[in-house]
Every structure is written in C-alpha cells, then in structure tokens.
C-alpha cells in the first residue's frame, strides 16, 4: 500500500527513519527447479509455538530474538506476540497463514509446486528499530538453521 495511506504517526516514522540500504545486493542463482526445492518461511509476525518463550515487546530497539517453528506445527495454535499499532491484527488472529503460510506450503508440496517443506521455519518479531543485533547475532543463527536444513529457497513474509 502507498505510504500516504499509513496513519500520520507511522507515516512520519517511515519518512524520518534511517532505512539501511543493502549494498551490494547479493544474488544467489537457483540451480534447481522450484518443484525440486526445499522451502522455508521467515516471518516477522511474532508467532510462537504454544509453550515457547514469548517475544518481549519491552526490549528497547525491538526484540531481536527468533523462534523456530517446526514443519509439523499446528498453525491454528500459534500465538502472536506482535503488539505493533501499525497494523490490524485481526487477520493473523483469525488465520496465522495470512502472515505465516505454512499450511499453504504443505499444500504446494502435495500438488508438486515445490519439492518439500523445510523441517524448520523462523519466526521473528517485527518493529525492530535498532537492527544492529538482529544482523550481528540473529541473522547468522538463522542462516545456520537454514543451511543445516539444506534449504534451497527462503520466503520472507513481513506483516
């Protein structure tokens, strides 16, 4: 959606925030057909498997930790800890697939669109205004998980 449709508060934020530019832009050539690929999701909807540690909205600059969501997780049971006022939470509350489409990935495996669903998926908390620790600490761990699981394609879904 265009920035002009954001609330005044959030419009001001996105206009004044110092967005970090990716430079140079990396490019990994995908050598396989999508139908042969193992696919993982990386979502920033703040979803957590029941009983797992909640995200902490009080951390200054944003909670930069991550949670693993296994491929066999019950999507309807996931708990959302995102508290941002920037978006309407009713969609994720009604159906977490709207921001973490794990059920859809299983269906796309069944119909042959993708090769397989990765065993582990990554859940992050969005609204991280100070991304230093996310990049320095969390990103290498997330990369480690995806590499260990021999993931071919990672799909990133913000809210």
């Amino acid at each position, binding site marked *: *959606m265009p920035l002009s449709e954001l609330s005044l508060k959030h419009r001001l934020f996105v206009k004044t925030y110092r*967005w970090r530019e*990716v430079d140079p832009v*990396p490019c990994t050539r995908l050598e396989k057909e999508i139908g042969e690929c193992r696919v993982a999701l990386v979502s920033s909807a703040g979803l957590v498997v029941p009983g797992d540690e909640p995200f902490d909205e009080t951390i200054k600059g944003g909670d930069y930790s991550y949670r693993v969501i296994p491929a066999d997780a019950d999507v309807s049971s996931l708990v959302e800890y995102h508290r941002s006022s920037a978006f309407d939470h009713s969609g994720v509350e009604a*159906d977490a697939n709207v921001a973490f489409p794990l059920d*859809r990935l299983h269906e796309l495996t069944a119909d042959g669109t993708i090769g397989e669903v990765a065993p582990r998926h990554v859940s992050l908390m969005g609204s991280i205004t100070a991304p230093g620790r996310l990049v320095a600490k969390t990103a290498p761990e997330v990369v480690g998980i995806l*590499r260990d699981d021999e993931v071919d394609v990672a799909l990133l879904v*913000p809210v």
Partner: protein
Amino acid sequence: MQAEIERAGIATASITLLPEITRKVRPPRALAVPYRLGFPLGEANAPELQRAILKALLAIVHREDVPYVGEYV
C-alpha cells in the same frame, strides 16, 4: 535479514506491503502485494488466494536482475 540469507547462498524472495520502502532498502527480490499491513497473504481463511500469492512469490526466485520488485495484481 533477507540479504544475509541470500549472501549465505540461499535464494530468497520476500513479500512487501510497502514497496516504496522496499525500493529504498533493496533486498534481492520482492513481490509487492496490494493489501493492508497485517495481511501479506491477502486475507484470512482464503487458502486459494494465499496459494496464488505464494506461487507468484516462488515465480520470482529465479530472477537474477536484483534488486527486483515485482507486483502481484
């Protein structure tokens, strides 16, 4: 995060709800969707739409003309 994963040799694509910001940040591949914040896969309990968006997202993963921002219409 997306750039770090791509840099590690894993092909990536993201959904974006705010393409104006995505063009500034320049992740490798993104698909702009015409929905509100909070609804990257369109609508709750709309499996057909959600699958269609995922397929469109998967269709850009092979692109090498990065940074690329496509549009889901």
